[in-house]
């Protein structure tokens, strides 16, 4: 079968890319390994009657123009913002202060500007490089000034109340294992784990369904249950993909929503890539550190410190965060990992039977590889215990109402979603892996989402636009494909 574009992965980014490509009139196919679309955006029944999104409750926000152009509102995807609150070990609840809000608003503006820049760069087909041409000096990206700042320094300067600053830090670093005192950690504010965009009514699965509807409606084909195992090349250029069952799919362009390492190291043979590209792919550092625990409660817990649809961050202060980080770096499970607790059934009653409740806990600073071996049942039980301690700190008495729990440890993110090292962010958020250098550092190289391999485009979390918003990296990659096909660069 001959297609114009093949998209690997039917997550939010892949489906968005498919919508854009199909609307531009290209014959598009989306290949998904799992039997259902959605990737991160799924809602599963983990215990009879109790449902929750296993991987994350909330995505970073979809930029408003993209939201409208995808027609998501018409498809019933309405986002309900979930404000955040910090609960410290004494049970005192802290909300965002005025200057914290201003800082977050500024970060949001920088994010939008950076996304606009990514889209603009994608729309320009790369100029033919002659031997004599010198690469034009790069303009700095919006938000690049924060590459030198440490998150704790930036917060200390901009947010007067230290506890409001701790809340901002907890929100940005939710589920990550990042040191907020290192220079460059301020970029986590620009590419946060959560930015308060909210949960779609009906859960993330509703978003996946809406995107699938939009993709099919535009004319794209979606095939589930098929795995892409290698890339077909013709000369130096991509000619298609090969599937696990031996089928070949010809395509002029391939958009991969897998992360950088998986795209380059598992889809190509070792001798197919230029040594520099292979070395960069191998040297790309993954972050990670997330684990999730889904808890089924037989009855809703006692009074929470605020309205129940809030996200509660549990923090024990600076010393505890440093200890958690050191434990993670040493390959052990921290005593008190940073945790985000959310009573998901309070916002969406369909997630639990009447009279019961579903709780999710997102833990950060959980190492992907444990120093003493694999993730056994005991280790998962330890995670569950940590999660219950955190939930108890926010809503006392949770521990006594637990009916069942499911632990999603870092390797499960890799197995289920194909995210290398369980990193939902697709790569460490550090200055040498952001903006123009995400994911390729070579000066004068193709600006993202294009890759050094002609015909291959990187969408997904490892691309420049990836950590800055949901769905948008797919749209940016589609823009690049359409521009390149229009310029006649792809046969």
């Amino acid at each position, binding site marked *: 079968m001959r297609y114009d574009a093949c998209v690997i992965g039917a997550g939010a980014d892949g489906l968005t890319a498919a919508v854009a490509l199909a609307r531009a009139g290209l014959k598009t196919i989306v290949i998904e390994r799992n039997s259902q679309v959605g990737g991160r955006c799924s809602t599963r029944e983990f215990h009879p009657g109790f449902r929750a999104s296993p991987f994350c409750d909330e995505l970073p926000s979809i930029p408003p123009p993209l939201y409208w152009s995808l027609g998501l509102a018409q498809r019933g995807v309405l986002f309900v913002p979930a404000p955040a609150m910090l609960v410290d070990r004494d049970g005192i609840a802290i909300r965002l202060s005025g200057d914290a809000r201003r800082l977050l608003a500024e970060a949001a503006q920088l994010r939008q500007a950076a996304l606009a820049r990514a889209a603009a760069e994608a729309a320009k087909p790369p100029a033919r490089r002659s031997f004599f041409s010198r690469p034009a000096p790069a303009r700095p990206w919006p938000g690049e000034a924060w590459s*030198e700042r440490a998150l704790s*320094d930036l917060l200390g300067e901009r947010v007067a109340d230290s506890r409001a600053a701790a809340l901002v830090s907890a929100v940005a670093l939710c589920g990550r294992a990042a040191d907020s*005192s*290192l*220079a460059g950690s301020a970029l986590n504010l620009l590419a946060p784990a959560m930015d308060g965009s909210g949960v779609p009514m009906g859960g993330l699965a509703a978003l996946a369904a809406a995107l699938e509807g939009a993709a099919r409606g535009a004319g794209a084909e979606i095939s589930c249950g098929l795995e892409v195992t290698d890339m077909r090349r013709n000369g130096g250029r991509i000619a298609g993909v090969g599937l696990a069952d031996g089928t070949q799919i010809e395509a002029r362009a391939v958009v991969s929503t897998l992360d950088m390492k998986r795209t380059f190291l598992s889809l190509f043979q070792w001798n197919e890539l230029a040594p520099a590209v292979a070395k960069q792919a191998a040297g790309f550092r993954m972050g990670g550190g997330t684990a999730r625990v889904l808890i089924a409660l037989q009855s809703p817990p006692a009074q929470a410190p605020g309205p129940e649809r809030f996200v509660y961050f549990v923090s024990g202060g600076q010393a505890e965060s440093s200890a958690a980080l*050191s434990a993670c770096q040493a390959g052990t499970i921290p005593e008190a990992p940073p945790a985000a607790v959310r009573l998901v059934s309070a916002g969406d009653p369909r997630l639990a039977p009447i009279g019961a409740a579903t709780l999710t806990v997102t833990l950060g600073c959980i190492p992907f590889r444990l120093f003493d071996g694999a993730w056994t049942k005991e280790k998962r039980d330890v995670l569950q215990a940590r999660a219950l301690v955190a939930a108890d700190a926010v809503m006392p008495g949770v521990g006594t109402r637990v009916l069942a729990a499911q632990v999603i440890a870092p390797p499960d993110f890799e197995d289920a979603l194909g995210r290398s090292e369980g990193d939902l962010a697709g790569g460490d958020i550090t200055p040498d892996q952001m903006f123009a250098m995400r994911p390729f550092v070579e000066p004068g190289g193709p600006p993202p989402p294009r890759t050094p391999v002609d015909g291959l485009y990187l969408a997904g979390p490892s691309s420049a636009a990836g950590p800055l918003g949901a769905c948008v990296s797919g749209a940016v990659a589609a823009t690049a494909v359409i521009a390149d096909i229009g310029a006649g660069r792809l046969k």
Partner: protein
Amino acid sequence: MSSAPYDAIVIGAGVSGLAAAAYAARAGKRVMVVEARNKVGGLCETARFGEHFRAPVAAHALYALDPRVVKDLALTRHGLAFAVRDMPSVGLRSDGKHIVLPRNLAAGTRSISIHSRADADAYGAFWRDLFALARAARTLWWEQSAGGERTREMLARLGYRSASAWLDSWFESDALKAMLAFDATAGGATPQEPGSALQLVWRAAQEMCGLQGAAAFPKGGPGALAEALLASAQAAGAEIRTGAPAKRIHANGAVAAVELASGETLACRAVLSSLSRRKTLLDLAGGVSTGFAEAAALARARPRVGAAKVLLALSAAPPFAGVSVPLAGRFVVCDQPGGLAAAHACARAGELPEDPAMEMVLPSAADPGFAPPGQHVLSVLVRPVPLVPVQGWPALKPKLVERVILALERHAAGLARHITAAEALTPSDIEYAYGADDELGGAATAARMLAPWASRVKCAIAGLYLCGASAEPLGAISGRAGRIAAVTLVAEQER
């Protein structure tokens, strides 16, 4: 009150202050240097240690001395000579497989190949690339110029990388990476931090005795450098006053006078301060003429970790087992690259790392005047250590010496038996003695290292210049900031 105002008053008679004074005096300015201590030299001090020994108290090797300062101020004529011009770097390892990296690439490659063949092959290319980039960067770091566009771009890109990521892209063996990463920890940085890769480039850009990236040991220790600078400054006509700590800089938009602790006020047109930016603007200038936001930023930028010194008198040469190492080298004890990050986190939390990373020099191997024949002095720089430990330095000082000795025992079994005297200088001792607080006013960020000289040397107060470690891209005994500050001052006064 003196009759006519001085053209410049230099605060601090360390290497930077003396260099600045000498340059200003040579340009015909009437210069007075005020030094709080009773002797000049600042961190370049060679002092008596124990009964028969001498030791470099703070700085123990020079690697960043500005060649122009040496030439313009005729320091060789004033008595500066070097006992060792090119100290090889030696990475000591507890398993005896020490990595010796002299200037001779072949010898270095041999010693790396014991750890990894691939690394040995890559080392030559790494060295050449690093030194080429470093040479290109000299336009930015040695003179007040902006540097070439391509160089700036490459430096900016490298500014985003951490030393450990950069070394990871070249080498695979932990041994070599850890040893090289130690040099990226100056100024309280960790090798994991963006900007630390630039520290390696900066070190490679320096030149001692005509050799790029070399470390040298002066005859008579770093104190001899101070003496030579003093002689040069005095020959040029600068007045030096010791035992005269400066208390306040009187300025009202522009510098007017310097008030000493004794109450005496010296009128002047300009001040060159070798103290840190924070001390100069907030303590000496009283926060006047410094914007509120800048003052808040300076007050907030507290360094996180510091360095300590341990001096040991040995009755015999250290018994280094394993591969033979040249005694007149610069030893780095740092076994694990990950260990530096852990040690840094430990120090930030106020605890002394279990396994301290150290740089050591045996001055007695280079210059016989430091110890009686057959005996040695070992000067150890321990970095990182907490600046304000939880237990307090008085309680932690003996532990520091103990841990250093234990670490040394692992690399030279039997060394403890030879120790006849031991002394330690904690960060608080160093600050108390030399007034050298956070040399850098914060960590060595890429922005600071790549900024133009004027932004580090000048202040919002007209006539006030910084010439010390705060004005350098990376705090080190250099004299370059002194030269550039003095040259800037002279140019502005002529206008």
